[in-house]
């Protein structure tokens, strides 16, 4: 039933100058901005709400800054490989694209694994979302925020990985028949991926360093 030809899938619209897909993903990202914006604004409100001595620095709260830093680098690297994957397609070099894209996915997984170890470490120290700081019963929602923020972000990373995997394994075939369209899809996947990276760029200092 969807054999209909719906215009501006691959060619940009004369007025807006972008393809429908691109406009769509940007609209989605705009709503994501509001989603994470709400998280951060809540963070600010809660932080000024509690007494300052109830608010730990990331280090004090036992967050591992070196690991966090490393993870940041991992995510940034995955971003550049993502761009390269797209660029390779532009220069229709499918081989390079495959390598870069696979690397992106791998780095994404690495990020999740590391995050997983961080969680495990917290749990082993009996630190859970419901834990107060410095000790149980102290009124600071810090750990709650930490787990919720990173958890939600990790969810986004996982989602991105799934989509990318699908594109890499089943999607790529499209490149032979309709390179324009497929390159567009990779660009869209990229936009999402970079946004997730961008969110982390704020999450990291807010949770680990401040």
């Amino acid at each position, binding site marked *: *039933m969807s054999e209909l030809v*719906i215009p501006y899938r691959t060619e940009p619209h004369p007025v807006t100058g972008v393809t429908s897909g691109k406009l769509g993903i940007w609209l989605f990202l705009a709503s*994501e901005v509001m989603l994470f914006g*709400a998280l951060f604004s809540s963070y600010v409100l809660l932080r000024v709400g509690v007494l300052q001595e109830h608010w730990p620095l990331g280090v004090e709260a036992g967050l591992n800054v070196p690991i966090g830093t490393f993870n940041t680098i991992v995510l940034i690297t995955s971003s550049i490989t993502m761009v390269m994957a797209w660029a390779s397609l532009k220069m229709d070099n499918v081989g390079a694209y495959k390598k870069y894209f696979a690397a992106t996915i791998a780095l994404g997984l690495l990020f999740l694994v590391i995050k997983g170890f961080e969680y495990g470490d917290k749990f082993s120290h009996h630190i*859970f979302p*419901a834990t107060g700081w410095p000790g149980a019963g*102290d009124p*600071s929602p810090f750990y*709650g925020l930490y787990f919720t923020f990173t958890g939600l972000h990790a969810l986004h990373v996982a989602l991105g990985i799934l989509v990318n995997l699908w594109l890499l394994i089943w999607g790529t075939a499209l490149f032979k028949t309709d390179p324009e369209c497929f390159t567009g899809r990779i660009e869209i996947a990229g936009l999402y991926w970079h946004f997730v990276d961008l969110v982390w760029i704020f999450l990291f200092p807010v949770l680990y360093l401040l």
Partner: protein
Amino acid sequence: MSDTHDELGFWRTYVFSTDHKTIGIQYGITALVFLFFGFSLMMMMRWQLAYPGEAIPIIGGLLGESSVDKGAMLPNFYNQLGAMHGTIMVFMGIVPLAVGAFGNFVVPLQIGAVDMAFPRLNMMSYQAFVIGGIVMLSSFFLPGGAASSGWTSYAPLSITATTGQTFWLIGMIFLIASSLLGALNFIVTILHLRAPGLTFFRLPFFVWSQLVTAFLLLLAFPPLQAAAVFQLMDRLAGTSFFLPSGLVVGGEPLAAVGGGSPLLWQHLFWFLAHPEVYVLILPGMGIVAEVIANNTRKPLWGYRPMVYSLLFLGFLSFGVWAHHMYMTGMGTTMSTFFQITTMIISIPSVIILTCLAISLWGGAIRFTVPMLFALAFLPMFGIGGLTGLPLGLAAPDAHFHDTYYVIGHFHYVVAPGTIFAMFAGIYYWYPKATGRALNVTLGKLHFWLSLIFMNGVFMPMMFEGMAGVSRRLFDPTIYEHGAAVHGLTMMTSWSAWCLALAQIPFIINFFMSMRKKERAQENPWQATTLEWATPTPPPHGNFTEPPVVYCGPYEYSVPGAPNDFTPQHVKRES
């Protein structure tokens, strides 16, 4: 449609269709059923309010003893019904009907598109809506029943509430996802798929209203999504985003970290919920504009001012939400700020209503059934909107806050306001959707009875509110000022039940007319907008040849034109 049937088979055609018209109709039926269900919940509550502690006739016997005691309603069941009525009506009734149904069916037709920009996304949006709806309804069968903390789900109450609240949150997350996908799709469709020649100021007002609505949904919903996640964490993982320290519930200290803020929830909720109320009304205004232009047989008066007001309204609606929170004890600086923005935002509504009213001047007004509903919308929304003004000022709100005056205020805008607009839309586009015309006599019967009883339901609430009777009261008569207005309560309840009876002609009409032999013409209302340029009912792909637009949306009674209506896709000679 006909030929595509065999190609695709039953499932792809009716259940997992990606055709915007089918999806629109799916949305419509589902939403109407939910509307009626939400109404039924309320009719039970109205019994308890009219005859406190007396056994509910018929239904009372069927309910479990967790909800009724010897047929008489229990307080916690009352609270469940209230919360679910609100949730169902807003998120599962009006929004899917106004945006999902009318948006999906009409917008692509009116802009001359073959379909929505992302048909598969469209289908997913409907499926998410259905899942959300099922989750919500299933919560009635949980131990402890459905959510019972009001549709506003204020923390901390909602966090110490039973499992129903968890389902409410999960259901909301699905409904929100559905709305986001839909909104995104509408914006791209309207920006990209307009027929050649259909410039922005040639768009029918309805399309404009859907565009603004889509932006409201897209940008206002995510914060509630975040809030829902927070509340889920509070309930399931023991965090305390919304829980301050030292809570003692039922004599037992609450095991929670504390350090959270109950008001944070309210901010995140109302950041959505005020734009949401405009989501409830704008599509309705759009429909009314269409119907009025068509039945006055002349162009809308002040089309551009209306569009600008719409945009302004949409933008500012993100900056007034705390007028729902005057009584939480905010400082006077901020309450002044929100009083000012609230007064400002009422002006565009005044402008739109003024333009619609003046549009009647100089017309040749046909009192068709959709027109009747559209005309009734004006004063009904007028009452609802005007009663918003005293609420918008903190000092009077100190008396009205959370009284039946508020209930009366917003029901006047959503029930005889939006619901009437929805009915107008149904009567107006039904022939296009089904290829059959609705029966006029039944329609008029439905209209007059609904009009009478709608006012019978909601006008008394204004006076109850004046008397200071609080809302969400299982039994208002335990207060002296509550007992004093019991006569009005009775009137409301009986009107509500009669209002339900008044829907019977509609339901009969709705289903019987489909079976009619004779088909409706392509353009029964002699309208100008593009949806009437399609065959009836429109086939998959809508237009026989892609339309080109030559003029504005409401070219009625053009001097020297052959007919009293000049369709947008007809080139005018000369």
